[in-house]
């Protein structure tokens, strides 16, 4: 019953979206404001309808209504309620429904907020979003309909993919990823709207686009970090990034969006790079669709790939439409956005942004080529090859190193041109921090030259970015007598984007430190232990207490209890487990991680004796891994600060922060130097 209702809602949603796209296009062309209003209305209505369908799906999942095909596919009576609800995005059809819902939510928010903006840009953006929604609506009514009726109704289902019901992060990672991915449709819709409406040469719309990119970028950053964390906690090999096609797919649009967030500042300040920015914005959207296509269609093998089906061909059609449409739009409008480039000096922040964009783009293409190469090689040579971790690490490490260096140089250099004196004052002091961190790395035994450089550049960049905060705060402190905390708060509030950006830099440096340290100092060992025996890795000793088993409703669990022993005292216990799901041939490893600020002890149970006499355990010791998750949090905080609207200057609310008179200190002061154009 619910299923029929939900499917009807989806059919109506398809018709509504179709109506909206047509009404919008005709309304704009013929200048019928009413028709445009109808198009806006259909966006809200579509959101409501998809919400109904999604709630119906959750209801069907929770009530174990196995007459619904999707529930029969991913549901089971034994699965805990929490994992039952989140299996909404656990398989292909559900994830498309969820995607459509997120797209509906974004569309509604974007159109509602900007509905009164004069001109045809917003209506065109609305039509663009409706056309994207149309694709998902067609999928949901046709090949990916999750509400198909199953007869006879099965008594029970297999439950969700064990990998997806084994960890709580599965509740976090996919929604964040969809919010990030789908969010990139919004700046794309604005870009398309700007091109259709002829506003593309103006700079006003780019600000709309930029804010929404920032929001989507924040979600995507969080999603990538959560995905790393999930694979670290669930896959059992003690790593967090394997250059798997799905991971790459989430990373590609992140790289171009990051490039855009930087180069858009050059456009705002100098009116340059308009065509380039348009390319980045459109490219980011194309990459989100491409990534989804590559990983969901089963064209590349991946840990996370869903099963193949006719859905792949629909995706192929859509990607053809998007790719050709994007190329035609941008190339057709390229002459309108030609700009006169002017730059006072090569030693300027603009140059750093150009280099940053160069490395981010080269990074993106390297990952894209590496991901697609097996397909290309098979087409050309007829031989299956693998492009794996060693290739990606070797090729991208120099680019990462360069990017970290630029994080330190960018904030230090002023716009336009830098005098030798300013450069000396700005660029020299951080070298001290670089030398210290580089030396620490060498002394502690880092031998990979790139790793040493990364540590040194992290020191350099950390100094440079923290100094920007320090300069602003001390200026406020001495000019207004504000205490340090007030100074910090008002400084950030006065220019959220700028200080949000620096904060994101600092977060990235934490992530880089965590990755560099854990890769450089990973120690591991495995041993078959009988109870009482110990394993020692890098000075950490753990003792096997016992091996145990337990039957849970949805799975069988075998675990080993380990005690971490330090100076003869038990300081912690760990219980690495193997979870056996009836539908899965091999067990799902469930490692246990004992974290501290200094690093992780990672326990994984590899094998056990049938009568509990012994267990084979792997112990991995990696320093600073939690810094990656912490740094990810800082990046997201930076994105939140950057995405919040700036207070209007010279408002009565914050006179001190807004007016910022010329300070007594003769230093380039943030309110004078940077930020909003």
């Amino acid at each position: 019953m619910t299923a029929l209702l939900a499917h009807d809602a989806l059919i109506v949603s398809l018709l509504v979206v179709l109506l909206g796209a047509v009404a919008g296009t005709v309304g704009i062309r013929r200048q019928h404001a009413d028709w445009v209003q109808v198009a806006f209305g259909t966006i809200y209505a579509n959101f409501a309808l998809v919400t109904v369908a999604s709630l119906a799906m959750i209801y069907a999942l929770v009530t174990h209504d196995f007459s619904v095909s999707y529930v029969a596919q991913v549901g089971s009576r034994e699965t805990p309620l929490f994992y039952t609800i989140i299996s909404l995005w656990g398989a292909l059809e559900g994830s498309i429904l969820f995607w459509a819902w997120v797209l509906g939510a974004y569309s509604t928010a974007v159109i509602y907020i900007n509905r009164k903006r004069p001109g045809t840009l917003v209506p065109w953006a609305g039509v663009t979003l409706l056309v994207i929604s149309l694709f998902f609506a067609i999928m949901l009514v046709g090949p990916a309909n999750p509400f198909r009726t199953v007869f006879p109704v099965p008594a029970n289902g297999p439950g969700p993919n064990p990998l997806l019901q084994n960890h709580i992060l599965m509740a976090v990672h996919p929604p964040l990823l969809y919010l990030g991915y789908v969010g990139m449709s919004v700046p794309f819709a604005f870009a398309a709207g700007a091109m259709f409406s002829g506003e593309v040469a103006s700079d006003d719309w780019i600000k709309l686009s930029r804010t929404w990119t920032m929001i989507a970028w924040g979600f995507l950053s969080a999603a990538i970090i959560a995905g790393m964390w999930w694979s670290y906690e669930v896959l059992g090999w003690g790593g967090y990034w394997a250059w798997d096609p799905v991971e790459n797919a989430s990373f590609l649009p992140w790289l171009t969006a990051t490039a855009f967030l930087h180069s858009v500042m050059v456009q705002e300040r100098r009116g340059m790079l308009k065509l380039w920015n348009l390319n980045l914005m459109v490219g980011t959207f194309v990459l989100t669709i491409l990534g989804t296509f590559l990983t969901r269609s089963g064209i590349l093998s991946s840990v996370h790939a869903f099963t193949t089906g006719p859905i792949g061909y629909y995706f192929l059609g859509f990607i053809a439409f998007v790719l050709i449409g994007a190329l035609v739009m941008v190339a057709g409008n390229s002459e309108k956005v030609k700009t006169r480039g002017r730059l006072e000096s090569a030693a300027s922040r603009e140059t750093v942004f150009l280099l940053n964009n160069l490395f981010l783009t080269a990074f993106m293409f390297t990952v894209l080529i590496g991901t697609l190469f097996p397909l290309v090689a098979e087409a050309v040579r007829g031989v299956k090859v693998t492009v794996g971790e060693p290739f990606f690490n070797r090729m991208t490490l120099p680019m990462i190193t360069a990017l970290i260096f630029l994080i330190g140089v960018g904030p230090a250099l002023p716009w336009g041109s830098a005098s030798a004196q300013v450069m000396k004052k700005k660029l020299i002091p951080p070298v001290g921090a670089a030398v210290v961190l580089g030396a620490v790395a060498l002394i502690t035994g880092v031998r990979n030259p790139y790793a040493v450089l990364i540590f040194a550049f992290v020191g350099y960049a950390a100094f440079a970015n923290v100094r920007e905060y320090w300069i602003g705060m001390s200026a406020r402190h001495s000019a207004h007598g504000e205490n340090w905390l007030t100074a910090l708060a008002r400084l950030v509030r006065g220019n959220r984007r700028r200080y949000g950006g620096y904060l994101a830099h600092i977060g990235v440096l934490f992530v880089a430190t965590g990755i560099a340290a854990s890769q450089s100092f990973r120690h591991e060992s495995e041993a078959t232990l009988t109870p009482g025996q110990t394993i020692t890795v890098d000075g950490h000793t753990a003792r096997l207490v016992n091996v145990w088993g337990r039957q849970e409703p949805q799975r069988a669990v075998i675990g080993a209890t380990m005690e971490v022993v330090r100076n003869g005292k038990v300081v912690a216990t760990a219980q690495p487990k193997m979870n056996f799901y009836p539908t899965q041939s091999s067990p799902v490893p469930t490692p246990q991680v004992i974290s501290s600020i200094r690093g992780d002890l990672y326990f994984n149970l590899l094998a056990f004796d049938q009568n509990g006499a012994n267990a084979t355990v792997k112990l991995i010791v990696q320093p600073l891994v939690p810094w990656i998750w912490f740094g990810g949090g800082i990046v997201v905080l930076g994105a939140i600060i950057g995405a919040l609207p700036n207070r209007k200057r010279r408002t009565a609310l914050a006179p001190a922060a807004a007016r910022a008179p010329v300070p007594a200190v003769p230093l380039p002061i943030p309110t004078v130097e940077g930020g909003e154009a």
Partner: protein
Amino acid sequence: MTHAVVLGALLLLAAPGTLVAQSGPPLAVDTTSPAIHSSFMSDSALEAATTAIASQLRCPVCRGESIQDSPSELAGEMRTLVKTKLAAGESPAAVKAYFVSKYGEWILLDPTAHGFNLVLYAAPFVLVLGGLAVVVIAVRKWTTAARADGAQT
């Protein structure tokens, strides 16, 4: 491993003291045990050489992980085999060639650097160098233009 094994194991673990004759050799192989002694290299050098090769071979039963990283049992056996072959004096290249002869080029995480595969290896360099050239040309053009503007006013 298996559901059947597990259910059996569960029963046994739940009832300590029950003994069953070991019906087969243990699944786990302790790769850290010094069972292999090499006359060609020290234990630590052998360990390092094994890790180096194992990191370049793709685990067949996993997806995209190396046999060094993978916790799967086949990967464990493969690591042991790599070590055994190295200890017997085979060269790293010969060990890799053995695996390629069994699994095809697919097993190499790093594709061989010859023929068409060179396209893959050249791409990042072309991208970075080409990009650098574009940046240098653009910055030059813009600074020249800015100076010309300055001279006019």
